[in-house]
């Protein structure tokens, strides 16, 4: 990737900020139900 790709014709903070936020929110959406499932199974195992 050349530097113009990262520069995004001067809009880098807006473009990368948008994609970064979306990636973080998507990752949270993927991760949160996995953690919750583990907790439910742990609780069900203890009962």
């Amino acid at each position: 990737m050349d530097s113009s790709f990262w520069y995004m014709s001067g809009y880098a903070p807006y473009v990368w900020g948008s994609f970064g936020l979306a990636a973080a929110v998507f990752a949270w959406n993927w991760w949160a139900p996995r953690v919750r499932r583990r907790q439910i199974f742990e609780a069900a195992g203890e009962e």
Partner: protein
Amino acid sequence: MWTWFHRLASPPYFFRLAERWAPWIGAAALALLAWGWIGGLVFAPADYQQKDAFRIIYVHVPTAAVSLSLYTLMAVAGAIAIIWRMKLAECVLVATAPVGASMTAVALVTGMLWGKPMWGAYWVWDARLTSELVLLFLYLGVIGLYQAFDDARAGARACALLAIVGVVNVPIVKYSVEWWNSLHQSSTIFKMGKPTITPEMGIPLYASVAGTLLFCAYVILRRVQNEVLWRERGTAWVAELSH
């Protein structure tokens, strides 16, 4: 059809069905998102007016579209939960709210990040932006209302009413750019007839929209599974799964 509908309402049947389908839906979502995001960031040409700032649409448009679809899904699930008292519909309703809220938040923030360089302001009290913000509050209202109840079924029924009443906001968001003199541009891809976007830019956008929809379907399936597991935690089939 009705037999299948009734079978689907059975928690263990639904759980196993979702367990079988979710990985495939997740993999398809990942492939489409990779296609859409890489295509949008790397291969689509820069816009002649907005330059590279236009690339924000590859996250903004899909999340905004999904924010409306998920609210509609929540309202339909709410109606089924109230009319047929179907527990699975209650689970779908409460599982959709956090996913919809997060997609609405992404649509709003990415819209602000696009608005600053293009309009000169992060926020304007425009009909489209304001109605989308109301949508976020409706989602947060459903999440908060469900958590305020100790009884999951009573909580879900209250949320169903809020989801059904709030669905009036969905066409307001969708048609706000036509009904009012809005700063927000009108629809480019979701309109009747020929889309006014070149295929080089449009195809990755369609892939992003499809990928985001499938991703949300995956997350909702997983969340519904969790809701079913939590409600059925005292039963033999859940105990068997937890060992």
